[in-house]
């Protein structure tokens, strides 16, 4: 996982650009958004409530969110992004097989 750049080096040009783990820094228009990351598919014997939770409920965080993105107009690979949804600063980009980075939890706001 690439460490997030120190705050002083986060320049505006970094933000609406996403660093694809394979292709490097590309413009947002090359990517497709894929919703919340790390959603676990429940086993098929789960309760109706657990299944409904998987289908319909998503976290609503103000702060750092963990999302899936695909480099749809490039290498077509899916990966994950930790982004501050207030300032839009991307804190981390990591592949599906890499662990979730410790970049702080946003407050849960319902």
């Amino acid at each position, binding site marked *: 996982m690439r460490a997030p750049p120190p705050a002083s080096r986060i320049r505006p040009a970094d933000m609406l650009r996403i660093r694809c783990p394979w292709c490097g820094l590309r413009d947002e228009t090359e990517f497709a958004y894929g919703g919340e990351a790390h959603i676990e598919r429940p086993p098929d014997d789960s309760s109706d409530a657990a*299944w409904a939770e*998987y289908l319909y409920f998503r976290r609503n965080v103000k702060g750092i969110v963990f999302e899936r993105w695909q480099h749809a107009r490039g290498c077509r690979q899916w990966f994950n992004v930790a982004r501050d949804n207030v300032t839009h600063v991307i804190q981390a980009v990591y592949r599906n097989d890499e662990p979730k980075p410790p970049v702080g939890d946003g407050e849960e706001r319902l």
Partner: protein
Amino acid sequence: MSGSQPLRLAAGGRIDRGRPLGFAFDGRPYQGYAGDTLASALLANGVRVVGRSFKFHRPRGVLSAGVEESNALVTIGEGGRLEPNVRATLLPLSEGLRARSQNAWPGVRFDLRRTADLVHGMLPPAFYHKTFKWPGWHWYEAAIRRSAGLGPARSDADPDWYDACNGTCDILVVGGGPAGLAAALEAAETGARVWLIEQDREFGGSVLQEAVGAAAEQNIWLVGIVSRLQSMPNVRLLPRTTCVGIYDHGVVAAVERRSDATDGAAPILRERYWRIRTRRIVLATGAIEQPALFANNDLPGVMLAGAVRQYLNRYAVACGRIVAVVTSDDGAYRTALDLAAAGVTVAAIVDSRASANGDLPQLARARGLAIYRSTHVIRAEGRSRVRALSVAPPDSSPVRIRCDVVAMSSGWQPALHLYCHAGGKLRYDEERKCLLPKEGPEHVRVTGAAAGVAPSIPGVSESVRGRTDTRRHPSGEAASRSWVDFQHDVTVTDLEIAVRENYVSVEHLKRYTTTGMSIDQGKTSNLNALTLLARLTDRSIPETGTTTFRPPFTPVTLGAIAAGRTGRFYRPTRELPTHELQVELGASVEEFGGWQRPIAYPRAGEGLDAAIEREVRTVRSAVGVFEASPLGKILVRGPDAAQYLDRIYANTMSSLAPGQSRYGLMLNEKGVIIDDGVCSRIGEQEFWVSTTSGGAVRIANWLDEWLQCEWPTLRVVTTPVTSQWATVTVAGPKARAVLQALATDIDLSPQAFPHLSARYGQLSGFECHLFRVSFSGELSYEIDLPADGAEDLWRAILAAGAEHGIAPFGIEALMTMRIEKGFLHVGSDTDGATVPDDVGFGAVVRKKQSDFIGRRSLSVAENLRTDRMQFIGLRAVDEKRPLIAGAHLVDKTTAGYVTSACHSPTLGRSIGLGLLRRGRARIGERVRVFDNGTECVAEVVPPTQYDAEGARLRG
């Protein structure tokens, strides 16, 4: 001053007197000079009334000299080049320009609709929304609509073009006045790539308001810095370009005006939309002068003091002959001094402050100008232009000052719209009585007058000084005639009424009174409105707050936003591999699912319906050929391909032997059908997945997503090959005979090549996949080959089929046949809730033991209900009444819908497919079909209305 252009000074200005230009306003001819704007030329010619106000149709004159202009909105151009709401203060004068006033009838000098002004008391804020309650808006709404407003919209196609450009730089400076030029030079000298955008044609900003004199220090400085910047290769200068918005992360939008020409036949590039990505932004956007509030402050001749000065110095235009200056600031004294120096009579300077001891007031006193102190204005007098100013000196009775121009100022408000777009926050400065930047993102810096700071250039001293309480708030009758928002005709009384009705939040006030909501976006009204609201609600200005500034800063044409992506270029055209051949064969081509496809092939003298009917009969009785290339095709390969497809499809694919095909449904996790198609096993570890034409891209993405994100350990590769392989469908009882007439090494006999199987081999010299798949319900072969061979294969097939009466058939014929067969079309016959059991696939899916996408949802209570909408067929009882897709199937209330319908040549009547509650149990019943006010009756039948046993398919 000359006879024409009576208010043009004999000398001075930055205009080019060597190039006179003829123009017309409302049909009358006038003259101006190159370098004029339309506004300056009109003023030079003594044209006072240039428009009528939005609501009350009061006569209005030029108010300002810049982007904040609220009154002088004109229409230019004809036909497709018609452009309304052009601000005359920004429009450069050109030879032959024909401009017209707006919102007046019969004309701007005499507008009958001014009667609205007589009844202004009946037209308070939000009167329009109140009229919808009572008495009865139907009979007056159209009249109100017609009588208020701005310019007309064009209805002809725009012959000109627009484009878009992307740019990248290190530092973007917005505003080419003294502060911006200095910032640009400083940045450029570090070697950074610097762009400087300026809305005017010339750089200079406030320097252009100074008197032109060859020795003037400011001008020398200006000429020097501009030529220095022009010489630097790392600097890009973009005049005539307005920055309209700052978006997240250093993306800035700007619109460059490439040409203003309104005549000439050849299309021209009119505007360019810039999308600039930059690391740092410097905002040197200057400040906008604010009007004073007094009765009739909207009369023609009442103008902003800085504008009067700019017309004088830059355009050599005296706005009138006797000027009264109203101010609460030292800056407006410059206007008085410059007017006096140019020989224009300054009637008086009316200063609301008790003392004015700065350099400028002292100069004014020295020059002998009359100055009233602690004096406020009661009203401006005049009917269609200002003739006098009535003022109230302290300890004295009101004085009437004769004048034909009032140069007013109640201070300056820095232009901070872009700063707010970028996320900057504002604070109210008590000393300067305006909003200033407080804090913002680190990559944005505000400088110069926009930051409330005077630029340090030689000869110009600080203009904005502290004032005492300045913005007097007129009351009573005067309040109803004191304009806050000129463009939307909002008065002080309107704000009082809004507050009385409890619209005390600034967001509510704005929307209730519409102040600040017109195309000038409150540039000359927001600050006064805010101050008034604070006073009326007994709050401080910081407590009252401001509304949010959003892009665009000034109106942007749709042309610039579209930047050429219109008409043919709105969306990329996708043509079939055999497109030219289809056209040659007489196809009627239309867009269908993103592709240009043959609808039918009408012959000479044949209507479309007759052609469709003929094509259906041909396929059912002989043979037809169809262009099926848009059908989605995805290769799925690997050791785990079979297991993977079992998880993707609701039914089982792993049990297919190589060479076998099976129809399958794909569901989403909610159990809803998202696509259907035939899946063929073409090898031990190779599958050919076929999707609907509309789902080709969507399903390819779906497969990819599940593989990468949920099941990354499966050894599978998916490859979309939709465009690489053309698909030719040969269908009909004679289809086999036609293919056998072509050279082939494939055994086409029914035993060797049964229905729903796949073969690979030579056909007419091409390596092809052949799939026995049928959407028409007849014996049918889908032939897939590399796309560049498709045309030759078509010709070979047409030749071989000639003796059998082969004919090409189009989409409509295919749809008719599939409806006769009851074959579903996902997305037409299914909706966002349809699950496999609804379409009769329940048993197949329930048998499957292994997990697949959507499986868990199928046992959720909602999906097990017995009253769900089920897929059925419909047959019109009256053969003359057509069924229409979208019609409702009605009992006491809607029980279902007709989802597909056609005239069936085979069955001789209108038939359809539909979704009906408990549909399967109702087969045999009749149901009412309701469509848009008409009704007919249909019989509920099984979906397959033709060849129910499928004997023709399997032949």
